[in-house]
C-alpha cells in the first residue's frame, strides 16, 4: 500500500514539475495563437535550436545551461521576429484557396530547422552532463520517520523554478508595459487595437519573437534533464498545441493550467501504462479537450468570472 502511494505521489511530483516546463512551451504558442490566429507548427523546432545553442555553449565553453537562457532567449527572439517578418507575414497577404497556408508554412520552417540540425550536428543523441545532474533531496532527509520515501531532483526543481520566474516576468511584461498591453489588445480585438493606434504589424512580429524566446528558454531548462536530437522538436510542437487547445486557444492562463494538466497526465500514463504510450495519452487528452471542452480551460475560467 505504502509503495503504491509512494509511486503515485512521486509520479504526481514529477508530473507537476514537467507541467511547469510544458506551460512555458504552451505559453509561447498560445501568445502566437492569440495575436496571429495561427498555430506555429515550428514551435518545437525553435526549442530544438535553443537546446543546441545551450548544448554547444556547455560543451565548448562550459557555460551552465541555466546561464545560457540569457543567450538563447534573445537569439530566439530575433530568429522569431525574422521568421515572422520575412516569411509568415508576406504569406498573410497572398490570396489562396486554402486558408491554412501560414500553418503549412510553419511546417516547412520546422522541417528545414530539423533537417539542418541533422546535417550539421548529425542525428546523435546529446546531453549536457552537469555536475548536479543526479543531485536530489529526499523526504527522509527532512523527516526521519516518514512512512514513505519521496525524492525531488535538483535539476528538475531548478528548471521548474526558472520556468516560474520566466512566467512571472512574462506576466509583468504583458500587464505592466505598453508593448505588453498592446499585444494583449491585439489578441483581444485586432480592429479595436488598430483604432487605438496599435501598430499591429509590429506587434505580430514582436509576439512571434516572444513566443520563440519563451520556447527557447524552455529548451535551455529542458537540456539539463533531457537529451537532445534534431527531430525532437516535433514532439514538443505536439505538446505545445495540445496545451494550447487544452487551455483554450490563445489564453495565457489557460496555457499554464493546460501545461500542468498535461504534465501530470503524461507522467501518469508513463508510470502506469509504459513510456511508449505517453504520446497516445497526450493525444487522447487533446481529442477529449477538442470534443468535450472546445473553449478549453479558459472557457471555464471565464464562466467563473461571470459568476455562472
Amino acid at each position, binding site marked *: 500500500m505504502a509503495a503504491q502511494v509512494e509511486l503515485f505521489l512521486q509520479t504526481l511530483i514529477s508530473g507537476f514539475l514537467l507541467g511547469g516546463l510544458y506551460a512555458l512551451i504552451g505559453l509561447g504558442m498560445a501568445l502566437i495563437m492569440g495575436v496571429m490566429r*495561427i*498555430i506555429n507548427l515550428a514551435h518545437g523546432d525553435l526549442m530544438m535550436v535553443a537546446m543546441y545553442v545551450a548544448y554547444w555553449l556547455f560543451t565548448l565553453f562550459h557555460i551552465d545551461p541555466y546561464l545560457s537562457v540569457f543567450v538563447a532567449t534573445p537569439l530566439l527572439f530575433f530568429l522569431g521576429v525574422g521568421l515572422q517578418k520575412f*516569411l509568415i507575414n*508576406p*504569406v498573410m497577404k*497572398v*490570396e*489562396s*484557396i*486554402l*486558408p*491554412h*497556408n501560414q*500553418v*503549412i*508554412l510553419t*511546417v*516547412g*520552417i*520546422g*522541417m*528545414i530547422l*530539423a*533537417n*539542418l540540425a*541533422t*546535417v550539421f550536428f548529425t542525428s546523435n543523441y546529446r546531453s549536457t552532463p552537469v555536475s548536479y545532474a543526479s543531485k536530489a533531496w529526499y523526504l527522509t532527509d527532512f523527516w526521519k520517520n516518514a512512512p514513505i520515501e519521496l525524492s525531488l531532483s535538483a535539476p528538475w526543481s531548478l528548471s521548474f523554478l526558472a520556468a516560474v520566474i520566466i512566467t512571472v516576468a512574462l506576466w509583468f511584461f504583458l500587464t505592466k508595459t505598453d508593448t505588453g498591453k498592446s499585444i494583449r489588445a491585439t489578441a483581444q480585438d485586432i480592429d479595436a487595437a488598430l483604432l487605438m493606434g496599435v501598430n499591429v504589424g509590429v506587434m505580430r512580429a514582436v509576439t512571434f519573437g516572444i513566443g520563440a524566446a519563451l520556447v527557447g528558454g524552455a529548451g535551455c531548462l529542458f537540456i539539463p534533464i533531457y537529451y537532445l536530437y534534431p527531430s525532437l522538436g*516535433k514532439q514538443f510542437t*505536439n505538446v505545445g*498545441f*495540445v496545451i494550447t*487547445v487544452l487551455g483554450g486557444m490563445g489564453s495565457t492562463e489557460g496555457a499554464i493550467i493546460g501545461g500542468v494538466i498535461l504534465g501530470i497526465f503524461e507522467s501518469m500514463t508513463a508510470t502506469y501504462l*509504459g513510456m*511508449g*504510450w505517453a*504520446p*497516445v495519452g497526450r*493525444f*487522447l487528452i*487533446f*481529442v477529449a479537450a*477538442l*470534443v468535450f471542452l*472546445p473553449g478549453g480551460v479558459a472557457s471555464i475560467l471565464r464562466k467563473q468570472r461571470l459568476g455562472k
Partner: protein
Amino acid sequence: MKKFMPPIILAVLCFLPLVGLSSYAMHILVLVIMWSIIGMGWNLLGGYCGQVSFGHAAFFGMGAYSSGLLYYHFGISGWWGLLVSIPVLTITSLVIGFICLRLRGAYFALATLALGEVLRVTAENLVKFTQGDLGILIKQRTWVEKTWYFYVILLLAAGSFLLVKKVMESKLGYYFVAIREDQDAANSLGINTTLYKTIALCLSGVLTGMAGAFYMNYMGYIDPTTVFPLYDISIVTVMVVMVGGVATYWGPVIGALIMVFLAEVIRSMPKIGAAHQTLFGILLIFIIIFLPNGIVGDFRKITGLFKPRGALK
C-alpha cells in the same frame, strides 16, 4: 481537345513499359502514379471540400497495414488488402470524421495530425498484432518485374481520376466546394455539412488507403515509421497537391511527378542527399509565397488562359 487528354495520356502510359525502360525508371513511374492517387485523395478532401488534413499518413498506413496484416495473420495474398482496405478505410474515416469533423479549419488539421501520430504510436506498441518496429515483410513478392505493378497502379490511378472527376461534376462536387467556401452559408442553403464532409473524408481515405495497400505489396516491407510518418507521408501529400495545384484535376499528378523526381534527384546527390527535407521545405515556402494555387492553378493565370468557367476547375 481537353476532353481527350486523359485517355491519350492513359494510352501513352499503357505502352510505356513496352519501350523497355530500366527497372529503376519503372520504379520511379510507379512511385509517381502512387503519389498521384494519394494526392487525388487528399485533394478531394482538402482542395475541393476545404478540410485540410495533416494526417493522411493515417489512411496510407491503415491501408498498408490492412494488406500486411492479412498476409501476416492469415497467410493470404497481400493483394486482398486492396479490397479489404475499402471497408477498413471507410470505418477508419467514419471514426476520424466523428472525432475531427466537428472541428473547423486549423483545429481539424491539428486533430488529423494528432490521429496520424496516434496510429503510428499504436502500431509501434501493439507488438503482438503488428510486430511493432520489426515491421511486416512479405517474403515472396508476386512479380519480379515491375511491369505488372505498374499496370496495377495505373489502373488504380485511372479509376481514381475518373472517380474524382465524376464526383466533382455531380451534386457532391458542388456541395464540397460550397462547404469549402463558406460552411455557415452552405448549411443555411440546405446542405448537411457534416454528412458531406464525412463523404469527402471517406472517399479521400479510401483512395489513400488503397495506395497504401498497393505500397505494401509493391515494396514488400512496412513498419510504423515508413507508413505513418508525419513529414515523409502526411506533409509530402500536402506538398504534392500544393505544388501541383489545389482543387485541380491534374494538380496531384503534376505535383507527384515533380515531388518524386525532385526527391530522387536530391537523394542521388551525395552531399545534398541528407538535406532533402530542407530543400522540400524551401520548395514548400516558395510555392506558398509565389504560386499559392500551384503549378496547374497558377499556370492558367500566367499564360492568360484562365477563363473562369466553373468552380470545379
